């Protein structure tokens, strides 16, 4: 465990030291990135070692004899630690050139401070082994990420996003507190491991409470409302870490509770699969309708959390129906997708950050033609888009493939499990197709065509740190896609730590599957290279002319006359009208010489709208009625204190 604590110490000290070097901007960044990066490397090495040597590592500190701060790493923790340290490492490197405004020295230093705290607290969340430690790390994580979200607190929209995030993370934490409270009141022990002794009915209560609590962090529909606000507001490397890794701590929480509660009813799997299907499909539909590139990516995170949940749900159904293969496939697929999503989502956020940095806008429909000037970014973004759409030979395919396999195993079951497996497979297919549409939209509109507006900076790629991070992530997308064996092995280590009562998971049947993936990916690559070579050869010596698109005879085309992202998505969005109402603002064109008109469309998130109507308004009304308590007279306030003390002394 020492290496783990060393890495956390180094990461946090990197953040703290950056505060001491305020006057020297570049040195400050070097120190912060260097320390955070090296801390992450140590942590990564340590967690990889622990993943492959599955022994339980424990460490405990007593504070004031009141409660112990204790940590424990098993396979599951180690599996989550790998992406946490890896993505944070790359995000730290990326930030070196991303945070490039020497005038905002203090803001940057504060950003590094909380970044360090965020990484450390995420690592602590997945290793905590008692209630106190867990909640402490959880709160630390929520708070530090809140401060990272309000990095640009000058703008009202940013503050609003930060507030929303703050409220959501704490309402979520409240549910977790409630669940742990129920546990503690029964067991009387702070150790998480005692959860297994709860009676059946309490276990379900605890699971549902934690599912809501962790779900609000993970971004399960309809608790995802904060995601599309907070992610666009934060700096891109922070969005990458938050969307890539931090929301996965919610998934970790659900998995850990599932493992600790050791519940064997089919109900859990049904809940999780259903939640997964809803988040998956609605997430991608909303993503498709977004105009802001980072909002789109945020909704796509909701979609991917949905896929992960479907995998977990299939795994749980497999466990409850005694179908070993299905269980392992579901959980391993889900874990693999956790890792994959952390890789391609952070890649996409970093790419988006790069583009936003140069163009100075986040609106997809204001961009265009970026690929011509920013080849590396464009290519990396393309790989990320293909991976997130779940296409072979990239990593997104692998995770989803195993979840599909698990689902197909469930088709042989009876009744509910049969229906749910079918639905899961269908919704996975729908999600995949829509994700494809969503990311062809982003890539087509942002990177191809012509620039739709004048950009803030000239489009060029001169930031090696940012490019390095993206290239590493893109390369990893390909590597996992082609050689999934070792990564699947890692996921299996995580699954075996779940203790599903299956004993040691045999590797052989899975090895042949991953082997097949590798060979077909090779085949695919060979065909691709062959076609590419053929094309080069055929075009050799011929003159290639480049000209504008034929405008049907119109002689004065402008770059604004291009296919937009909104029109691309419109027909699909139209189909989902009941769940994704589109609000349009478009004064009609009339007369022979029509005046200028405009078109504005916005998709309404039904979760946001209904939450406002059903929960927020009544609560506000109630608290408005209670306003008389705050009358401004200090003497009566002290009277309240006295009253409270007396009541506490004599009645509690």
């Amino acid at each position, binding site marked *: 465990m020492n290496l783990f604590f060393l890495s956390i110490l180094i990461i946090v000290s990197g953040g703290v030291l950056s505060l001491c070097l305020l006057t020297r901007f570049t040195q400050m960044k070097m120190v912060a990135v260097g320390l955070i990066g090296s801390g992450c490397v140590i942590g990564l090495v340590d967690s990889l070692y622990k993943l492959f040597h599955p022994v339980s590592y424990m460490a405990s500190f007593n504070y004031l004899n009141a409660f112990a701060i204790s940590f424990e790493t098993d396979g599951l923790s180690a599996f989550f630690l790998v992406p946490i340290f890896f993505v944070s490492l790359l995000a730290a490197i990326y930030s070196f050139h991303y945070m490039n405004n020497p005038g905002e020295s203090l803001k940057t230093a504060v950003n590094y401070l909380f970044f360090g705290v965020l990484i450390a607290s995420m690592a602590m969340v997945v290793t905590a082994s008692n209630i106190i430690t867990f909640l402490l790390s959880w709160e630390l994580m929520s708070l530090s990420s809140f401060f990272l979200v309000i990095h640009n607190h000058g703008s009202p929209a940013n503050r609003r996003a930060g507030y929303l995030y703050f409220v959501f993370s704490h309402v979520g934490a409240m549910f977790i507190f409630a669940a742990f409270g129920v546990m503690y009141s029964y067991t009387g022990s702070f150790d998480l491991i005692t959860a297994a002794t709860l009676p059946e009915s309490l276990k379900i209560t605890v699971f549902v409470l934690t599912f809501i609590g962790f779900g609000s962090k993970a971004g399960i529909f309809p608790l995802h409302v904060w995601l599309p606000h907070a992610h666009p507001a934060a700096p891109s490397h922070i969005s990458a870490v938050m969307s890539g890794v931090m929301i996965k701590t919610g998934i970790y929480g659900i998995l850990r509770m599932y493992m600790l509660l050791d519940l064997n009813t089919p109900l859990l799997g049904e809940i999780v699969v259903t939640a997964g299907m809803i988040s998956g499909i609605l997430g991608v539909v909303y993503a498709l309708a977004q105009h802001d590139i980072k909002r789109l990516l945020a909704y796509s995170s909701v979609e991917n959390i949905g896929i992960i949940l479907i995998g977990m749900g299939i795994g749980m159904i497999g466990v409850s129906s005694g179908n070993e293969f299905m269980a392992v496939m579901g959980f391993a697929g889900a874990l693999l997708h956790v890792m994959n999503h952390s890789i391609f989502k952070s890649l996409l956020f970093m790419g988006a950050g790069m583009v936003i940095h140069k163009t100075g806008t986040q609106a997809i429909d204001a961009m265009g033609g970026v690929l011509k000037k920013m080849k590396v970014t464009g290519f990396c973004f393309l790989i990320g888009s293909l991976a997130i759409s779940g296409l072979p030979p990239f990593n997104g395919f692998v995770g989803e493939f195993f979840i599909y396999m698990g689902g197909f195993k469930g088709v042989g079951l009876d009744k509910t499990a049969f229906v749910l497996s079918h639905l899961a497979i269908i919704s996975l297919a729908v999600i995949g197709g829509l994700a494809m549409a969503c990311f062809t939209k982003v890539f087509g509109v942002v990177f191809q065509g012509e620039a739709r507006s004048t950009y803030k900076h000239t489009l060029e790629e001169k930031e090696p740190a940012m490019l390095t991070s993206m290239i590493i992530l893109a390369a990893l997308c390909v590597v996992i896609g082609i050689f999934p064996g070792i990564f699947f092995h890692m996921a299996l280590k995580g699954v075996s730590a779940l203790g599903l009562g299956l004993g040691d998971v045999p590797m052989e049947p899975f090895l042949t599957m991953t082997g097949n993936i590798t060979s077909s990916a090779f085949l695919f690559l060979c065909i691709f290279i062959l076609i590419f070579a053929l094309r080069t050869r055929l075009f050799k010596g011929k003159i290639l002319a480049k000209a504008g698109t034929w405008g049907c005879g119109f002689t004065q085309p402008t770059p604004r006359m291009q296919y937009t992202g909104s029109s691309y998505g419109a027909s699909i969005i139209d189909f989902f009208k009941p769940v994704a109402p589109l609000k349009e603002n478009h004064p009609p064109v009339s007369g022979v010489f029509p005046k200028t008109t405009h078109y504005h469309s916005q998709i309404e998130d039904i979760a946001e709208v209904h939450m406002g109507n059903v929960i927020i308004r009544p609560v506000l009304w109630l608290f408005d009625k209670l306003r008389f308590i705050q009358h*401004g007279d*200090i*003497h*009566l306030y*002290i009277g309240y*204190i006295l009253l409270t003390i007396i009541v506490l002394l004599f009645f509690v």
Partner: protein
Amino acid sequence: MIEPLDTILSLVLLSILFSFGSSLLPGLIEVIAFQGIVVSIVPLFLAHDMVPAGIAFTLVTLLIRGIIIPLCIYLAIKKIAIRREVEPIIGFHASILAGLALIVVATFVSRKFDVPSISASALLLPTTITLLVAGMFILIARRNAIAMVLGYIMMENGIYLVGTTFSIRALHIVEFGILLDVLAAVMIMAIILQNINHTFDDVDTALLRTLKE
């Protein structure tokens, strides 16, 4: 048989009644100073072993509690030179009556507590409770901000007595912790007072109501 400790504690109780009855700030400060002195010598008469260091601590406590803090407040009201009435919300007679009732209730209630060092004096726990609640009472029933600060100090005296009652092992650590608290609190209050006075030309805390949203 008259125990010295009982005498001291009776003095504390008397000082509470006096403080409820005093209408002018300087008088109230004197009463509180007296109370501070009396309260800080209580440990000397408790049955603990008194090492020289302990006596030194007690003396320092006495110095700060009985002399420095009241002097500071006295100088402060001289400097601000504002109205010297404590501006009661609850009248003086009613206050004294309430004080008497408080002592009775405290005595009655203190029987319910099971405290090991209660054997030192039957009056110790009632006095402590009375001090705490009386401090709160002044906070509630006096409108002048300085009177409220004095009420707070009275409460702190009570907490100090609780400390001496309950903590036998780490007595001086607790004492000093409390003392530091008081010093910091008085400083903060002085700053806030200055600000209130600066804003409203008065230290009437009822004026704070205008700050309400």
